[in-house]
Structure formats: C-alpha cells, structure tokens
C-alpha cells in the first residue's frame, strides 16, 4: 500500500508524549465502573449493590447538588435575551437577575452572546472579576491581567506550554497532586520535580523539603521553572497557613521561580481556624508588587458552592510578567479565539455574587450556606468513618472536596495485587468497587510516598446516601482485611 509504513496513525506512531501522560481520575477504574453500571442495567441483581456511586471526580451536580438559582436565572436571560422584552419574565425571574442580565448584555458588543469575544474574555466581565478579586484581597486587580478560559485546566496547559522548552525544564509539583499537572507536564515534554507534602503534619508543606527537591533537580541539570501550589489542596484538602504562604512567596522570589497558584477550591473551607488567602494577597501584603514576583492564580466555576463543572468556566490572573511575555500568552489564547461565553458570564457572577440588599441576596445566601454546611458535615462524617476503620488513617479535609485516607495493606494483599499485575491501592480500589459499587481513585494516580497506599474519595454524594456508603465501606474493609490477614 503506502510508501511509508510508519506514516499512518497507529499507537506505535503517535506522539510518545501522548502515550506517556496519564490521568487516573477518569482512568481504568472508571471504565470498569461503567461496565458494571451497564451490567446492572441489563442484568439487575447480578451484583452485590444496586447502583454505582461515582466518588472519583469532583462533579457535584452529577450527584444531586443544585445550581445557584440566581446564577442560572442570569444565564437563561443572557442566552435568550428576547425574554427581557416579555412582561411574563418579571413573574418568572427575580428582579435583580433581570437587572444583572441587562447589565451583562450591555457590556457585550451588540449584546451578541453568540459571537467570539476578545481572546481574554469580554472586557466588562473581566472588570467585574477584577473588582471581585480586589474586594476579596484588599489589593487592586487589573482586568487586563485576566484570561478567561474553558475551565481552569486550559490555563494550566497554556502556562506549561510557555514554560517547558524541553525535558531539561522542570516544574515543582506537590505529591500528592491533582494529576492535571503531571499529565500536562508530560504532554508538553517537561520534567515533574516532586516535593512531598507531610502526611504526619496534616499534609504540611515544608519549605526545606521543597528546597531539597529543587537543589536535587538542579544538580541533575534540570532548570526548574515554576512551583505549583494547590491551595486548598487536591487530593489532600489542607488549607495553607499564612506563614507557610509567606515562606512560599519568599522562596519563589529567591529561587527565581514562577508561582502557579491553583486556587480553584478557594470557596471550599470547612474549618473555622483556617481562612483562604490568595497568594496575590499574601505577596502584596509582604510588599511585593508587580515587578517582584511572576504569579499565575487560577480560579474555576467548577468548585466552591456553585459546582458548575459542565459549563467550563474559569480564569487565570497573570501578574509579574513582562509585556513581551504577556503578548505571547495572549497570542496562544487567540489561536483558540475565545472561551465559551456562558462560562465567562458565570465566572463574573461567581466573583461578583448578589450583595446585601439585592432582591436575591437572602435566597442566594441560604442556598450557598446550605451547600457549604452540608459539605462540611459530609467531610466530617466520612473522615470519622474512615478513621474508624482498622489500619486506615485519614487527615481532615480542611477544604476542597476530597478525602485521601491512607490504608495499611496486609502483605498478602500486596502480593495478591502484584499477582494481578495491579498497584496495591488500585487492587484495593477495584475490590471496593466490585463489592460496594463505590468508585474511588487509587492514590497511585496522585502520587504518594513509595510503600504507602491511599485512595481519593469525594465528599459529594448527597447527605442521605452517606450512611449507606459508610456501612458498605466498613463491611467491605473488614472483609478485605480478613481475607488477606497475615
């Protein structure tokens, strides 16, 4: 046939970086769960459970969380502005959602929500976001520093693409980490430089550990370009203390690193003694301005109390870069033209929600607080349940949406896993799935200290399902230990 046998696209001839990258959150265990779900449909009663419960992914609305009414009112009106001309609309929609939709539409050239916008996102929406950032931090923010993206993830890819020239370029990432980072680094041909969070001290970030890993990487000829910090942590759930954040800022400044601050869980805080502080706020309060620290701060509409994952909205706030670098960031963003408008609008609502006095304020607060309090209760219930299991320790979820318990597996189980050609925690997670229908992600998908095993479970199933999940999990764990007891 062809003149060049290697030309056609086969698994042997595709980009090796594609082959190398991995993303466990929607990996093997999820595919298996989907097969079991099919089986339940075609052959009900054939499995020891009635339904699959997906605790593998931070996807709140897929597990019954309701969207914030005000946000959806504004979006519906923005999507179909003809509604604003009808008298019936004021009966069906709140007055402030109507006002906000009108304001948003007037900030869009021609009120055309179906048009490609400016490649950084609609200016008026970026203004609203900048105001929201300034109100949150007490330090000014600039609309021109904001790049609205289809979720926070494309913004992460953009920065990795800019920073990574070759395998000799490295990015410091926390271990455990959300595997977007490892996947993105692999896709863009760089090197992940791990720094270990300390499980014994609530997943503490020790600067001495980061420094050690940095120096180690440099001694191997790696140019370390940036430090990724996820705060609140994913999968680990810790919220950094201010002092810690100051150390991190100082460290990046001294070592010449770009700080990539993943702050998508900033509105998911469940403990009273910790508060979210953006890295930008911390840096500015230390007296570091634009000139002093290159910082990219990521936010998303997928998390918080709004959980609008399917809309794909988010932004990166890019500060401390020269104009020639920013032009390059803009240029790469422009190749994709713009992010989806609905997501852009939502991002502006998230950063600028109803205020006291607004018609929707009270119902908005009730919805918001209802969700956040429920998340806090679920985090606690699951954490306590996991800690009650033999050989399982689970750090508190101070924030985010996950629990990341450590499971001490008996030697026999580890051997059974090896015989089945699976990582021990994947073997455990698979057994858990097959006994209970609960889908979690093995710790190996996030990284962990070698010889330790974890899994990540979300706190997202609805509250009324939690007791059943806990009892099934407890029964499974006991049975598993008994089966593999040394």
């Amino acid at each position, binding site marked *: *046939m*062809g003149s*060049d046998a290697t*030309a*056609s*696209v086969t*698994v042997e*001839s*595709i*980009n*090796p970086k*594609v082959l190398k990258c*991995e*993303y466990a959150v929607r990996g093997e265990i999820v595919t298996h769960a989907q097969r079991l779900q099919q089986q339940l449909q075609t052959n009900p009663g054939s499995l020891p459970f009635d339904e699959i419960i997906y605790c593998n992914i931070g*996807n*709140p609305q*897929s597990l019954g969380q309701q*969207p914030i009414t005000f946000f*959806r*009112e504004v979006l*519906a*009106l923005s*999507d179909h502005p003809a509604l604003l001309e*009808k008298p019936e609309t004021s009966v*069906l929609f709140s007055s402030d959602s109507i006002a906000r939709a009108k304001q948003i539409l007037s900030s869009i050239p*021609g009120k055309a*929500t*179906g*048009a*490609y916008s400016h490649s950084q996102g609609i200016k008026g929406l970026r203004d609203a976001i900048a105001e929201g950032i300034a109100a949150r931090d007490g330090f000014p923010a600039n609309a021109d520093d904001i790049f609205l993206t*289809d*979720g926070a*993830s*494309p913004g992460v890819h953009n920065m990795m693409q*800019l*920073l990574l*020239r070759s395998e000799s370029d490295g990015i410091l990432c926390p271990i455990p980490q959300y595997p*977007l980072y490892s996947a*993105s680094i692999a*896709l863009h041909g760089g090197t992940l430089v791990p720094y270990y969070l300390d499980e014994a001290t609530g997943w503490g970030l020790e600067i001495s550990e980061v420094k050690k890993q940095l120096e180690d990487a440099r001694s191997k000829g790696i140019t370390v*370009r*940036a430090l990724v910090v996820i705060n609140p942590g994913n999968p680990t759930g810790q919220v950094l203390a201010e002092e810690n954040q100051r150390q991190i800022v100082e460290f990046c400044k001294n070592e010449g*690193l*770009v700080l990539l601050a993943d702050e998508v869980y900033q509105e998911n805080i469940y403990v009273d003694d910790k508060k979210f502080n953006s890295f930008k706020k911390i840096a500015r309060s230390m007296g570091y301005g634009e000139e002093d620290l*290159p910082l990219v701060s990521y936010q998303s509409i997928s998390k918080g109390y709004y959980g*609008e994952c*399917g*809309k*794909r909205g988010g932004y990166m706030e890019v500060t401390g*870069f*020269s104009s*020639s*670098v920013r032009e390059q960031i803009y*240029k790469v963003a*422009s*190749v*994709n*033209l*713009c992010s*989806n408008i609905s997501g852009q609008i939502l991002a502006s609502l998230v950063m600028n929600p109803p205020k006291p006095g607004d018609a929707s304020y009270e119902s908005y607060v009730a919805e918001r607080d209802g969700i956040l309090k429920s998340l806090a209760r679920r985090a606690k219930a699951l954490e306590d349940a996991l800690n009650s299991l033999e050989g399982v320790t689970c750090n508190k979820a101070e924030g985010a949406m996950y629990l990341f318990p450590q499971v001490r597996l008996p030697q026999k189980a580890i051997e059974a896993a090896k015989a089945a050609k699976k990582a021990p925690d994947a073997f455990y997670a698979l057994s858990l799935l097959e006994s209970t229908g609960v889908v979690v992600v093995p710790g190996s998908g996030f990284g962990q200290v070698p010889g330790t095993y974890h899994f990540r479970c979300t706190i997202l199933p609805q509250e009324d399902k939690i007791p059943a999940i806990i009892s099934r999990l407890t029964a499974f764990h006991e049975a598993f230990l008994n089966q593999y007891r040394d």
Partner: protein
Amino acid sequence: MAKPLDYESLNENVKKTAYAVRGELYLRASELQKEGKKIIFTNVGNPHALGQKPLTFPRQVVALCQAPFLLDDPNVGLLFPADAIARAKHYLQLTSGGLGAYSDSRGIPGVRKEVAEFIERRDGYPTDPELIFLTDGASKGVMQMLNAIIRNENDGILVPVPQYPLYSAAITLYGGSLVPYYLEEEANWSLDFNNIRQSIASARSKGITVRAMVIINPGNPTGQCLSEANIRELLRFCFLENLVLLADEVYQQNIYQDERPFISARKILFDMGPPLSKEVQLVSFHTVSKGYWGECGQRGGYFEMTNLSPKTVDEIYKVASISLSPNVPGQIFMGLMVNPPKPGDISYFKFEQESKAIMESLRKRAHIMTDGFNSCRNVVCNFTEGAMYSFPQIRLPARAIEVAKSAGKAPDVFYCLKLLEATGISTVPGSGFGQKEGVFHLRTTILPAEEDMPAIMESFKKFNDAFMEEYEDYRGYSRM
C-alpha cells in the same frame, strides 16, 4: 537575577507561532476603536458580531436547560413553545445532572448518537457514536489530533496554501513541519495534484515523514467547494501515500452555488468501497460556529474518526479526559444543530424562515462582495462558492511594495493597514494565510449586514483607487 520567565526563556515553539486572524491588523483595529474610530471587523468569521441574530429555537431550549426550575412553573408555556420545552427536557435527561455536571469526556452519549444519526442521514452510511468526540469548538479537536500525530520536527503535515492559520499555528506549537501544497488561484482555487506530489516528494527528500493531509472544504479563506472528482483523487492519494486525511468541513452548510453541493469526504470514501473505505484514515471536523447558526461563542464542535485503530482512539480519549469534558451547553447546541425542528413541529416554520433568510442573504452578499472587488481594476476575486470569506488578489504597484518594505512591513500588511486607517475596514492580510511569492491578497468576511454592503464596497473602492493613484507610476497600469 534574570526574571524567571522572560521572552528569551520561553518555549521556542510558542515564539514561532503566528495567528494573523487576531494579529497585527486586529490589534491595530482595536486600538483605533478605543480612540473612537468606527471599525468594521471583517477579520474573523463571527456572524453575530456583525448583526446576524441567533436562531430562536436553540436559544429557547438552552435557556430552559440553564434554568430547569422554569420547567416546573405553570406559566412556562407563556414564554416558551411546547416543542422547546419538550426538547429541553430531552437534553436534560441525556445529561448526568444538568448543564453543570462534567459529561463523558467524549461528550454526552445521547448527543453523540444524534450526531451519528445526522451523519448517516447526510451521507447514507452508518457511523459509530463511539468514534465521535464532541469538543469545545472544532479548533480544540484539530489541535488534539495534530498533537497526537506530531512526534517531532521530522513529522510533516500537508496543508493547503492559502490556509486557515489554526493549522500552521498548531503545527508550530507542537513542533512539527508544515508541508505546503498550493491551491490554483487561476483554476478557482482547485487542487493541483502535480503540485501536491511535488510538495510531498520535496519534503521527503529533506527527511520529513509526511503523516497527514489537511483539506478545508468549503475552503477558508478561499471559499471553493471541491468537486467529487477532486475528493476521490484526494482519497486515492492519501491511500497511496499512507496519509491521514484531516477533513475540515466546518462550512458544509455555507454553499452559495448549485454546481458543487457539499459532499463529505467520508461519503465519497465509502462510495469508493474497499480497500480504500477500510484503509484510509480520516478525521472529519464540524462546528456550531458557522453555517447559518453562527454560534461562535458557544464553542461547540465535534470530530469523527474513521479507520483509526481502537488503541489509537483510546489514547485520544485519554487526552480528552485530562480536560474532563467539553462544555455542556455547546454540546446541546450541537445536538440541536444536527437535529433541528422538523416539518410539523410548532417551531419549524419560524426556524425555517430564520434559517432561509440567513442563507439567502449570505448568498447575495457573496455576490455583492465578489462583484465589488472585481469592479476594481487592480483586483481579481474568485467567487465565494462557500464558507464566509472573500479573498481578493490585490495587484500592488512596485512603488507601494518598496514603500512597504522600507517600512518593515509585508506589502499586503501595509495595504491592509492603510485600508483600515482610511475606512475602518479591518481585514486580514493574505500573508496570514499563505500565498504564492509576490502575489498579495486580503481576507474579508461576507458577514457585514446586507444593507451595509454596498457602502462598504464603495468605501473600499474609493480607498483602493486613491491608493493606486498615490503609488502607481504614470505609465499606465502597474505590473500585472
């Protein structure tokens, strides 16, 4: 200490990437707009930005999906027709928890099924929804495929010249090599297989492994609609040379002549039967941004894979999963586009009316613009058979070329900047798309409102004639 990220230490591939559609001309136009000048943006295929109205039915459906509490309200029938209400319920049921939940990374299975059914109706051949991936706009799909194919700078991708610069940008970003093949302007931008064979041979002699061939049909910026014979020859060529065919068919609904209707590459591939239909690897792209929908801001698109191995499809799925899922409203727009109101539906009449009006107007504007350009003595413009653009060739006098060069600008950039400053018409110079050496073009869209078109063409002609006056020498016509 040097800044951690300065221009020098950026990824070289990023620095080399160019995307003229939102490049120098657009940035200058935006500056002028800020200063208060009226700008007509014809740099990008963005219909709604130039006054085209969204179709009513899809907006009604998506608004209901955004705010499902409306569906429970007894008064909802006062604001929405029954079929929009039913359709919203249908799509909400297909999601895994409404618009706010990540869907399957390949897109909502029910919507992919609707896309498969559309493809089958269009082409007469069945297709597998599992091989259809929805994406945030067709561009993301193109980038994913090119990223999967390109291993290093020795991998080449055949790209038409002129081309839509997403291809050149993506190839540069991913570190591959662009292997150009020239479309024949004098033969209505048709394919010249001798030229294509020469290009591929030349690339191979330099050690390049040519992996894939891009075809844009209808063409962008060129607008030509390929004949069935052309597409057959193309498929045979890909079969012989072992190339993946990347068929950008996003303008398949934008056809302004009747001699060459749109036929998908896939249909022709299956018409040709085995061995080609079983061997030729094909990826076809489509979008909600173009056609008569023009819903650019929704970012809805898909790609369909034919004859890629299951393992390859798995790897592409894996990469899609890192981004979790395409945006759900965009997916619903795609479902609605491939499954629009049918005769008998309450909303059918209005939907048909709105669609027809847009299509008829686009056809008229294609003519107005082509004729307007051709009425200028130094301009030759092929008819816009399809897509949304006009790509006239502007013959520039030698002195204009000299002045441009001494100003450090490509001659067509120079011309387009002058055009912008004189008239507010923001175009993209032909150099942004590629063209033969010494031949200059600009790309404009046919999207300004029909009633504004005559004035715009007048304004262009006035500028062009003045430009020629200024730069032409008095010995008559400039070099043609």
